[in-house]
Structure formats: C-alpha cells, structure tokens
C-alpha cells in the first residue's frame, strides 16, 4: 500500500498552485452553433495577448483572467469568428453562438487560423477527427467510414484488405477500447469486417489515443477510440441521407421543445447480397446477407446548468444460407448521461451505460441440427468530475463500477439430437475503478498531465475453475463457492509532459501503464464475430502494457502545416495465443487451449498535415516492429507478430477544384504482414504435408493501392433541399494485392506443390447520392 501513498503524494503537493491570486476572475460559458444549438467541441477562446482555452466535450469553457477589460476572440473551424469585449470584475458567464459559414471558400480561409496542433498541450499520440475530416476520404464502396479513415493515421494499421479491424502500434485487434458515447462496442464491424458499425451520419467526432492515454480511460492496452454521437438540432427540423451501392442512410433530427430539447434518429441498411454474390442457388429468397444499424439520441436542457443525454445504438448482421446455415450477430449500447455544472469551476458527469454483443450460428439439415450462441454484456455506472481551478490547473477525477458477464458459446440441438447440448458456465467479473489526474501548466513552457488509474478486477466465484498441464490437458477441477474467487488490483500511472521550445514547436514525452481483463481469442486471420471473449480468471492473468513515447511537434507560423514525429516503445505482458487446432467454442476446458507469453513493440511515426487552402490532407509514415515470445511457439524464440510491418505510408489529399467540385485521393503503401509459409514438405498417409520451420518467418508481398473520388456539391444557397454526388474508384490502378497466399499440389503432377494468391478486391467503382433538407 505504500506505493499508493507515493502515487498520491505528488498530487497533494501540487494542489498548492490552486490558491490563485485574488485579482483573477473566472470567465466561463458555452459555445454553440447558432443554428442547431449544438455545443461546439474544441472551439478556441483567446484573449488579446495570447492566452486562451478550448471548449470541452460539452462545448463548455472556463478561463481565469486578470480582472479588467478583456478582448475575446471565439473561433471554430467552419464558423464565423466572434470578437467581443468583456469587463471582468468577478466571475462572469458568457456564452457564444457562432454562425456557420455556408461558403466553402470562407471555411477554408477561416480554418487556416484555427486548426493546428496544440503544441502546448501535454497530450500526445492522439488524433481528433470530425466527420468533416472523414467526408472527403475515398473508401471502399463509397461508404464513408471513420475506422477506415483512422487506418490512414500513423501507427494505425488496417486488419486486412477492406477490413474495419485495426491494429495500433503493434497491438492486437482485441486490445483497442472502442467507445460510442462511453459505451464499449465489442465488435465494431459489419459484413465480416468490411464496414465499421459507425454510421457516419450519426457521428459528431472521434478521438483516437495511441499513447499517453489519459487517466480516465482504462481496460484495453493498445488504444482508445472515443466516438461521440451527434446531438440533435434544437432549433429546427432537418434530415439527411444517402443512397449508395451497398447501403442507404437516413437521418432525422429536430427540436422536441424548441431550444430546450432535441432528438436525433439515424438508420442505415445494406442491400442483401449486393456485394458478396453467394448466389447461383435456385432458392435465392432463402439466402440473406445484410446488416442494419440504428442510432438515436435525445438531449434535454434541464435548466441552465443541467443537461441530460440519452443515446443508444443497435445493429445486426444477418448471414443466412438456405435453411442450412446461419450466422447472426450484433451490438447494442445505451448511455444515459447527466451533465451538471455546480458552479463556475466544477462540472460533473453521471453516466449509466449498457453494452452488449451476441452472436448465434447454426447448422440445420436432415442429419445434423445444432446451434451455437454466445453473448457478452456489461453495465457500467460512472461518476466523473472536472475541476477547472484556474487557467493553469485542471483536476479530473472519477469512479466507476462495471459488471461484466460472458456467456460462452453454448451448443444446443433441436430436431434430431445430433449433438449433446453443452452449457459452459458463464464468466462474471466486477471492475471497480477510480482515477485522478491533474493537468498543470507549471511554467510558461512546461505543461504536465499526470494521474493514476486504480482498479480492482474481481473474478467472481460460484463456478468451476480448472488447472492444466503443459500440454493443455485438465489435471484438476475445483468448484469455487466463494463470492469473489480472485482480486486483480492494479495501479496504472499515467504521465504526459510538454516542453515548449519556441512559439511553434515543443517536445513531448509520456508514459502509461494499462492492464486489460477482457481478452479476445482468435485463431483466424480475419476478425470474426465468433471470436471468443474471456475474462481474466485464476488461469488467465490480466494483459499489461508499459508504453513510453517521446515526440517533437511543430506548427508553421500561419498554422497551415503541422508536423510531428513520435518514437514509442511498448512492453507487453501476459499476452495470449491459441494452440493450433484448438476448440474454443462449447469447450469447458478452453483455457487449456491457451498459451501465454510476452511481447514488445517499438516504432517511429511521422505525420505532416496541411490544414487549409485548396489542397488539404496529410502524409503519415510509420517505421515499426512488433514481436512476441511464447513457450510452446517457435521453440520459445521471439517471432514477429502477424501485424508486424516495417513500413507503413499513407498520403491523403483533398483538392477543392471549384465551389462545387472536390477531388480526393488516398495512396497507401505497406510492407506485407508477417506470415507463416512452409520451408519444405513431406508425404504422410497419401497427403503432401507442409513443413513449417518458423512462426511468421515470411512476409506477404508489399501492399499498395490508390483510391480516388470526386464530389459534386452544387450547394445553392437559400434552397432548403440540397444534394450532392460522390463517385469513387477503390484500387484505381487495379493492383492485385494478395489477401492471402496458399499452397496446393500441382494438378498435373501431385509430386510438385505450388503457391497461389487470393485477391479480394480489384478496381471497384462506386457512386453515392447524398441529400439534406
């Protein structure tokens, strides 16, 4: 426990700066869109002389200023800036409503001044994207997709051709915390991974943290993808939608009581069988392959200082082949958040969150008939406080209680009893957590953000635990009748610091430790809905990461360009792999199929971004390495993780050709993933068997691809109804990138073997029509 005290000691010391000077007065308020009344996140409030602040996630800002007459500038990309003079004698509340710019060229000019890397802020290894940033990035089938956009950022890799799965800084796909209005999204992909669950119409913005992860987040060791849903328009009713080759979308929003409350409802559905032709079958009507998702949000203004937000998501994928086979899966989330400003300095968020994921698959024929079903869900109660003490100090603290349960894949049989129904005991855990962090501008040039996240993960008992020998065979079984079978208590220190070198550049450094108690088990190359989730148990220890990052950030004088370079090193503990040929579903002894090891990942990321002008976009480059070491794999030697790649390059460019035409292009190049190929062969029982000498000792061929799109947006002012067209080309020069490489006997001479590749997508055109009213 002495370690706890030593963690909290510095916090009590640094509380001293909060005794701010008496001549200062606090200015606070909210910045909103004048038309929709939506709060604007990240709006910039500056006073003459240089100091300033930005609005938080609720559009709220607080700044402590010297008393007297102050000239304020409030600005936000895409909105007309406001300049106001206030006379500060005591705490003052001043809110702003900014007018959106309708002319595209204006928007470009304005954003030149306002966007730009926050070189002062200690937070690093993070990217904030709004839907505007994602709008013009060309994507597969023309479905704009936030996950596909973040895959173009440094340190973020696509999980495969067209995949909505992603890897961050050498981590696994199951190590990303994906949040939608604070609710965990367990499986963020549709149609076996080609689309993400995020309907772009319903999304306000997204923040990706790759390192220096702030103390309020925890639970996954690689990254946090924090997605916020849009608030409905409080002033007027409006709609928006689109027709694409794969899916159609419709969004409606408007006031419930004008200026007081609003609703937003958004739906998307893909067309059955439109892009994966399962077909040829006579009874096509019995086949289905589609997904839908629904987003809804209600916002209520309960008085001047209190807001209530209710939001939810429900999505489902249905894949059905005849009556023979089906696979259904989906996520559901619900969030209730009460936001309250106690006074000028203290704000509070109280949240109650549910999220769940389930799948069900089955085979049904005359001879065999069974179903496999599994679900995972959590309920989370959270209380967070922010204390804006003065311009130099902000304290955040909070507590949460999360109850997690997993019903593992169970087997049931209906008709002809071809299988024995198997019920595996559920796993349940409770995660009690708390955090405190302090963002402190220590000197003019040095800013710190440090804190600690503490949690106690309780493996709940009243179930059976097994022990296994080194070959994974069960050797003992013990029924645990206690309420709590095991506590995993972890302290996770977090620290970020920024040192301003001059007006335009800074050095930043960060360290974080994070543990993970929910583990995704996969033994396939694709992330499938049938991947198993397990909680930490007596057998499975929490995964752990220690990450250190060092970076240099620079912005040009006019803030038109941002540049950053970051180097990271990660040490991974208690990593999990699966034995070859393992049965993970409906297997009470599945823990015996797991192998435990360690990992390390390191890399260098460069990012150059042009924020404004006719030409906008970015170049990102990553040089990296990700390795693992397991007893029982590769003779216990270090091997490359599958997602290990040496080079990753992405170039994203948008060019505003005229008021109505925008051209966009994306080019990606990466070294092929590490892969296991045979180094020999032999004959057993009439079969040519491949002889493997090393795990992931080979490379897939280099991958590169160019995507193009053009958007025609006539944007006639004054008309209520307005529409635009986007045409796109995925893989414009039709590069035959290998999705997978396999080996087979030569048909003519079975004594010979040959390699062949499978290509998933050649050139794919798309067209989308979008409308707004």
């Amino acid at each position, binding site marked *: 426990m002495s370690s706890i005290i030593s963690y909290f000691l510095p916090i009590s010391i640094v509380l001293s700066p909060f005794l701010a000077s008496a001549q200062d007065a606090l200015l606070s308020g909210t910045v909103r869109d004048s038309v929709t009344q939506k709060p604007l996140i990240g709006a910039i409030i500056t006073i003459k002389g240089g100091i300033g602040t930005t609005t938080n996630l609720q559009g709220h800002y607080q700044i402590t200023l010297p008393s007297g007459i102050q000239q304020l500038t409030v600005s936000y990309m895409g909105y007309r800036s406001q300049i106001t003079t206030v006379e500060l004698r005591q705490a003052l509340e001043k809110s702003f409503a900014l007018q959106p710019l309708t002319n595209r060229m204006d928007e470009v000019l304005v954003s030149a001044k306002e966007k730009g890397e926050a070189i002062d802020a200690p937070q690093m290894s993070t990217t904030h994207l709004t839907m505007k940033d994602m709008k013009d990035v060309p994507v597969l089938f023309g479905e704009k997709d936030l996950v596909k956009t973040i895959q173009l950022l440094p340190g973020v890799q696509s999980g495969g051709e067209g995949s909505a799965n992603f890897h961050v800084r050498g981590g696994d796909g199951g190590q990303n915390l994906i949040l939608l209005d604070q609710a965990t999204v367990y499986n963020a992909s549709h149609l076996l991974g080609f689309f993400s669950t995020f309907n772009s119409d319903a999304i306000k913005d997204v923040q990706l943290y790759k390192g220096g992860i702030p103390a309020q987040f925890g639970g996954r060791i690689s990254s946090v993808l924090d997605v916020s849903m849009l608030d409905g328009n409080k002033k007027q009713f409006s709609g928006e939608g689109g027709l694409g080759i794969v899916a159609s979308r419709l969004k409606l929003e408007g006031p419930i009581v004008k200026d007081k409350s609003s609703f937003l409802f958004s739906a998307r559905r893909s067309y059955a069988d439109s892009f994966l032709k399962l077909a040829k079958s006579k009874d096509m009507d019995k086949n289905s392959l589609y997904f839908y998702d629904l987003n809804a949000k209600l916002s209520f203004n309960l008085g001047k200082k209190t807001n209530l937000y209710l939001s939810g998501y429900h999505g489902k994928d249905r894949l059905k082949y005849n009556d023979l086979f089906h696979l259904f899966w989906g996520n559901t989330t619900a969030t209730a958040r009460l936001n309250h400003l106690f006074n000028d300095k203290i704000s509070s968020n109280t949240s109650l969150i549910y999220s769940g994921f389930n799948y069900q698959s089955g085979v049904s024929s005359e001879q065999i008939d069974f179903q496999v079903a599994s679900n995972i869900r959590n309920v989370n109660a959270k209380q967070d406080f922010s204390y804006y003490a003065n311009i130099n100090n902000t304290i955040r603290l909070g507590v949460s209680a999360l109850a997690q349960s997993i019903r593992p894949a169970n087997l049931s049989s209906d008709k002809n009893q071809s299988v024995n129904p198997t019920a595996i005991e559920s796993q349940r855990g409770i995660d009690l957590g708390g955090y405190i962090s302090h963002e402190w501008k220590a000197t003019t040039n040095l800013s710190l953000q440090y804190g600690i996240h503490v949690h106690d993960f309780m493996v709940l008992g009243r179930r059976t635990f097994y022990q296994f020998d080194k070959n994974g065979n069960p050797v003992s079984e013990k029924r645990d009748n206690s309420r709590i079978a095991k506590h995993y208590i972890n302290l996770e220190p977090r620290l970020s610091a920024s040192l301003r070198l001059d007006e335009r550049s800074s050095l930043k450094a960060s360290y974080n430790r994070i543990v993970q108690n929910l583990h995704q088990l996969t033994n*396939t190359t694709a992330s499938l809905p049938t991947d198993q989730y397990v909680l930490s148990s007596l057998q499975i220890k929490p995964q752990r990461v220690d990450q250190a990052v060092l970076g240099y950030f620079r912005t040009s004088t006019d803030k038109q360009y941002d540049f950053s370079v970051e180097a990271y090193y990660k040490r991974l503990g208690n990593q999990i792999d699966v034995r070859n040929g393992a049965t993970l579903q409906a297997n009470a002894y599945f823990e015996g199929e797991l192998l435990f090891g360690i990992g390390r990942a390191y890399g260098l990321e460069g990012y150059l971004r042009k924020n404004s002008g006719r030409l906008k976009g970015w170049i990102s480059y990553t040089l990296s390495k990700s390795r693992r070491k397991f007893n029982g794999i590769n003779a216990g030697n270090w091997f490359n993780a599958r997602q290990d790649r040496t080079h990753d390059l992405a170039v994203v460019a948008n060019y505003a050709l005229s008021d109505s035409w925008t051209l966009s292009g994306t080019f990606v190049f990466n070294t092929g993933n590490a892969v296991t190929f045979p180094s*020999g062969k032999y004959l057993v029982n009439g079969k040519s068997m*491949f002889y493997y000498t090393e795990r992931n000792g080979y490379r897939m061929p280099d991958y590169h691809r160019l995507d193009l799109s053009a958007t025609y947006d006539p944007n006639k002012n004054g008309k209520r109804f307005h529409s635009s067209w986007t045409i796109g080309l995925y893989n414009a020069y039709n590069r035959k990138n290998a999705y997978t490489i396999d080996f087979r006997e030569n048909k003519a001479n079975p004594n010979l073997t040959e390699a062949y590749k499978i290509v998933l997508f050649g050139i794919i055109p798309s067209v989308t029509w979008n409308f707004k009213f």
Partner: protein
Amino acid sequence: MDLALNKAAARVVIDAQLSDAGSVQRIRLSRSVGFDDPINTSGIKGATVSVKDNENRNYSFQYEKDGYYIHRNFKPLAGRTYTLHVDVQKQQYSATCQMPAYVAVESTNISEKNLAGENYFFAALTFKDPAKISNYYIYTLSTNGGPFRFARAESDQFNDGLKVTHYITDQEKDLSRGDTITVRRYCVDQKTYQYWNEYQSNNLSNAAPSNPKSNISNNALGYFSVAAAKEYQLQIGR
C-alpha cells in the same frame, strides 16, 4: 505465383498407420524435401524398424522398397499398447500407442448436398457412438482404385453416446457420378486424432499454421498409430 521459400534441412518422416484391417503392416520412412522439390519417393533405406507390444511380442519390419518397411503377418489387437522403435543412422525414434476398439457402423450410403449452388457427394457412415468414453475417428479415401489419402478426422466431443453420421469426401478432387469409392475408417487414440485435427485446421484462414504435433520422439515428422479399422466400398449412382 513465384515465392522465394527457404529450403529447410531435411528431417526424418515416419508414416506409421497400423491397423487390424489386414495382417500386412506398412511403415514408411522418408526425408522432408524443399517446397519446390518433387516429393521424396525413394524413402530411407537401411533403417531398423520394429514394433513391440505390452506383452513383449516383437514384430520386426523388413525393408522392401521406396522406403517401405513391411511385416506380413501382424494383426494388432484392441487394448494392447504398442511401441515403435526406429533406428536411422544411429538416431533412435520411438512412439507408443494403445489401440482402441472398433465402433461398428450401422449403415452407409451416398449423400448428395447442395452447397453454394453446386452438388457434392459424400460417403455417409452412421453409427452409435459409445457413451461416456472419448472416441476418435480418422478416415482415408480411395477413388476408383487409386491410392488412399487422408480425408477427415472426427471426435465425439459434441455428440458422445449419440447416433452419429460422418460425411466423408475427397478434399482435393470432387467425387462424381459413377465413381467407386473405398472409405477406410480407423478408430484411433487421442494423439492420432490431434495430429490430423491440427493438420485439417491448417486452412486458409488459420493465423499461424504449424506442423501437427507428432507423438514420435527425437523430432521426427509424421506419427505412429495402431487403430481398429474397416473398409467400406460405395458407388455413386449415375
């Protein structure tokens, strides 16, 4: 497509599936070759190969040709434990296997299934799985008198004690109307099943294929299994 694969150093391969389907037992010794080389058809000469049972009967195998070591009067019995000893150039290899009992088949027929618009033929074998014990099955298949090839490994993990049907087909060449097929069904021990289950899990979507875990010592490839087996001949009607 062309792929530059390393050529691994050759390893000894022991292919030793014995059974009570006949009294002639064959064990083949060979060496692995590079991926792009033709498969090794000549095998290893000059090795000593023998199998001993738990009652100390010793069966000495004689070299004939192409790496085959043969014993022409050896019918193993269910319940006995057999130990293989192989000596190749002073390197010793050994493995042990207890032979399970045969699980009788009640009926066989040809089943035709429509998958993704195409019709496929399967040999269907129906039997009652013995309850409360773990049973493992592997199948090899010969089409129109051709060589037997491994076809499928099954276990009773999800259908212990039930009436079960196994569907067997040739994974490399679709069966067609008029074909005569011979299915050889082996009731095997857990390690033999594990070997072939790992082999059949090395499919396209497997994240990291690896060599099936051998039950033979000293790093040999291949496996040793003594099984209860029977053959079933079926014809796919025209």
